[in-house]
């Protein structure tokens, strides 16, 4: 559409931002990407997301949409004809939403951060739970190429950004996700074969450097 104005306020290592980048790429929507300095948030960010003051913020024709799961569904509903992300059947949609919620609570949640930001017993407990959650996701994937079936779907978009963080988790946690969850890694690599994903995810080494930097800044050893 010629008069569409789409702006994304984002921060390059954010997996939440990556979800929106992938969704927009899948729909082939041109947009303006604006990198935010989270230590010095722009007036635009504060105006467009006054409640949470967080990225990503999707601004469509001047109107803001906040929260990545809300944004991905919004993108899917505004541009429904290209690469539909949610299925049409209500039960299948409920399953997809359930697993999207699971990813947010269990994979992106506070407990999983302990895998890279703590040590000792606390870290071991976090690792164990993290792997259990990934295995549940493997179970849900089953023999499908993608969570969405034959093509990328909502759950794929919601989960795959995390793949860019796997290396950081493995190095900090001293474990191999591929050993524990080979099917999930195979799925992630399959997703990365798509431009919409590979161009939206930063390099794993850069994420690892970023994680180390964050640990240093917050005095986490």
């Amino acid at each position, binding site marked *: 559409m010629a008069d569409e104005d789409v702006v994304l306020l984002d921060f390059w290592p954010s997996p939440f931002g990556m979800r929106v980048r992938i969704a927009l790429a899948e729909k082939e929507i041109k947009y303006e990407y604006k990198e935010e300095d989270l230590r010095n948030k722009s007036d635009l960010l504060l105006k467009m997301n006054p*409640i949470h003051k967080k990225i990503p913020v999707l601004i*469509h024709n001047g*109107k803001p*949409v*906040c*929260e990545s*799961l*809300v*944004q991905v*569904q*919004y993108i899917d*509903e*505004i541009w429904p004809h290209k690469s539909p992300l949610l299925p049409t059947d*209500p*039960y299948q*949609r*409920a399953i997809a*939403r*359930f697993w999207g*919620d*699971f990813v947010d609570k269990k994979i992106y949640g506070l407990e999983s951060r302990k895998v890279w930001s703590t040590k000792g017993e606390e870290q071991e407990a976090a690792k164990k739970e993290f792997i259990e959650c990934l295995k*549940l996701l493997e179970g849900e994937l089953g023999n499908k190429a993608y969570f969405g079936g034959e093509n990328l779907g909502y759950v794929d978009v919601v989960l795959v950004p995390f793949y860019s963080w796997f290396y950081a988790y493995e190095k900090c946690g001293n474990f191999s996700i591929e050993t524990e969850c080979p099917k999930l890694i195979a799925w992630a690599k399959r997703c990365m074969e798509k431009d919409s994903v590979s161009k939206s995810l930063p390099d794993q080494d850069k994420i690892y450097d970023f994680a180390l930097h964050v640990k240093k800044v917050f005095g986490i050893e």
Partner: protein
Amino acid sequence: MKWRTIFSSKTMGDDEEVKVFGMWASPYSRRVELALKLKGIPYEYIEEDLSNKSALLIKHNPVHQKIPVLVHNGKSIPESLVILEYIDETWRNNPILLSQDPYDRAMARFWAKFIDEKILSTTRKVSFTTGKEQEHAIEEVTEQLKLLENEVKGKAYFGGEGIGYVDIVANFLVFWFGNLQEALGINIFSQHKFPFIFEWIQKQLKIDMVDECRIPKDKHLTYIQTRLAAFKSASK
């Protein structure tokens, strides 16, 4: 005059089977019942004892093992917000809970998340902490409620013309929250501090189905006090 739902010609087929695994004091569980009642969907309600969860609940929600769970013709759907959207998409009679407009839907989903991830989450901290930690949580939830107050200001319902998705998600304010603060002996939420939310509550109370989902006050107060006592003795 009490407001009543208007039914369209769509009715339940004879072979429709709807079950709700719930808990009478849970605001998440009450949401689901409210949505089904508003849509006129008959359902079988199964009360769960959360200290002794049934094998059926665990079968229908193996991942989280929590209520509420909706089971529709054998298909299980957990997570109250997921259930609400499922109900709205499956039974397309009035009231339609979510707008057809993608932007309005995004706003509704945003506020539902805010209620669950911020207000209700901070309320848990208020319940289960003491001293400075509790004071801080009370300040936090007050700020969050002010944002919600601002959102309903000047509106009869959160969504617009009639009861909808956010009104149902915010149902915890109609009975549950007032009971909780009374049991805790605190005063976060009053008509003086939150006149618009109070006005919204008065409108909600005029809806039969909302009243049918009332959490009985005395029973609720006793329940909360028992839970708090158990928590205090467990954490000693």
